[in-house]
């Protein structure tokens, strides 16, 4: 594998990992906000 | 009652339980023996490798056996409401910590003597500078017992204890593995002065985790 392969692999992996984690946070937050009435603490975007 | 007396009381209780149930003798020791055997299966004994890696294999076997012994030390507390009895007894948390750690250390040391024979016999290891070897082993064992007791009480009473406890303890005791193995290697290869920095490392580790246990054990024991 050329150097470029490692670089692209590494950057892509990083992007996927971060995007995946952000996605997980968003979906869990959405679900949590649905289960809480609007006046509960901790809400917010 | 002085702290020392309290600690000895707790240690005595644990050791007496062991003497009567003989779990360490009948189960932990054979386990360690089997581990030593399995290493020989995994690492071809005919290639002269075993004597060179014997210190490392010895300490891995001790560590694995130690996990069992520590797990057992807290399992006995789970029965018959012993935990509540300990809490109500008015014994100082630090003393209970010392007592439990001392009992585990004693069992480990006995185990190490026997395993030491095993390693000499099975792996054709030649012993030199026994003083350094023994000193390093004592301190390493104390560190293992202390750190293990701290994490043992953290994981005690949890349903996932069997899998969680090893995961918690093993990364933490990496320096002990390193220090003890290197100290043994230095002593056994005829350069005992090289063991000195490793012994220092083992002492530092031991002090840190004895302190940690001293401070944290009481509060940790309090919770349900």
């Amino acid at each position, binding site marked *: 594998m050329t150097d470029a392969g490692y670089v692209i692999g590494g950057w892509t992996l990083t992007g996927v*990992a971060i995007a995946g984690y952000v996605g997980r946070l968003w979906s869990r937050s959405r679900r949590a906000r649905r289960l*809480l009435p609007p006046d509960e603490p*901790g809400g*917010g975007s | 009652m002085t702290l020392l007396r309290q600690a000895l009381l707790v240690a005595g209780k644990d050791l007496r339980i062991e003497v009567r149930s003989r779990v360490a003798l009948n189960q932990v020791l054979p386990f360690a023996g089997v581990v030593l055997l399995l290493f020989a299966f995994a690492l071809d004994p005919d290639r002269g490798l075993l004597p060179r890696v014997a210190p490392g294999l010895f300490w891995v076997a001790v560590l694995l056996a130690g996990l069992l012994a520590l797990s057992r030390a807290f399992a006995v507390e789970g029965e018959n409401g012993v935990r509540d009895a300990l809490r109500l007894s008015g014994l100082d948390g630090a003393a209970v910590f010392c007592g439990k750690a001392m009992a585990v250390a004693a069992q480990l040391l006995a185990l190490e003597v026997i395993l030491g024979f095993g390693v000499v016999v099975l792996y054709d290891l030649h012993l030199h500078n026994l003083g350094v070897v023994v000193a390093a082993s004592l301190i390493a064992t104390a560190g293992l017992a202390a750190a293990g007791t701290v994490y043992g009480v953290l994981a005690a009473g949890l349903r996932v204890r069997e899998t969680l406890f090893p995961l918690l303890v093993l990364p*933490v005791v990496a320096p002990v593995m390193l220090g003890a193995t290197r100290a043994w290697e230095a002593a056994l290869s005829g350069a005992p002065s090289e063991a000195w920095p490793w012994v220092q490392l083992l002492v530092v580790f031991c002090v840190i985790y004895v302190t940690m246990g001293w401070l*944290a054990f009481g509060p940790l024991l309090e919770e349900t």
Partner: protein
Amino acid sequence: MRFWARRGTVVLGGLTAASLVVLVVLGLFVSDPDFQQGDAVRLMYLHVPAAWVSYLAYGVTSLASALYLWKRTRAQAWDTLAGASAEIGVLFTGLTLVLGSLWGRPVWNVWWAWDARIVSTAVLFFLYLGYLALRKVPADPAVRARRSAIAALAAFVDVPVVHFSVEWWRTLHQKGTVFDRELNPAIEGNLAWALLSGVVAFTLLYLYLLERRYRLAVMEEAIEGRALDAAIAERRAEADVVPV
């Protein structure tokens, strides 16, 4: 109050996204390849920032745990923060290890090396995993908080010991001098800017993720509390119905 909190998150999110774009542009396109390492050096622009965030997150977890344990500053919020930071920390520690491996292969032809920094990071990874596993065990929040805080501090005191012990070990064997030299190259020119942009971007990313994860934890704790209250109320209602 909540409006400003929302505003703050959006601003932070925007800044983070912008800085990440800058990083991609500088790191992948604008900056020159390294004289010795070629294009592989571009992995350093991710690896070093990820390592920095690992240790930052770990520091935050440890500090928050200490603040929780100290009576004068005890508050559930510290425990929540410690847990949130640890989760992000484990993500970045894992990334650090993988990126380090991917960087090491083209440059030094090894997937792994037994030097102090790498090994300490690997140990840190497992310490995080254990801590997170401990946090998942169901318990009364105060009990879980104290148990987790002590575990975090017990791990905290271990990392320097691990680091120094491995360092002694490796220097005694006098290996890795090439490795050490190249891990701290004198970085100049636009490579330095790319690296800096990486550190800035990842720090902002950490703060953003921490904020989101913290809010999520607060919400989930509230849900747990309400579920518990509801269950207790139901049991009480049952008890009232039964005639004496």
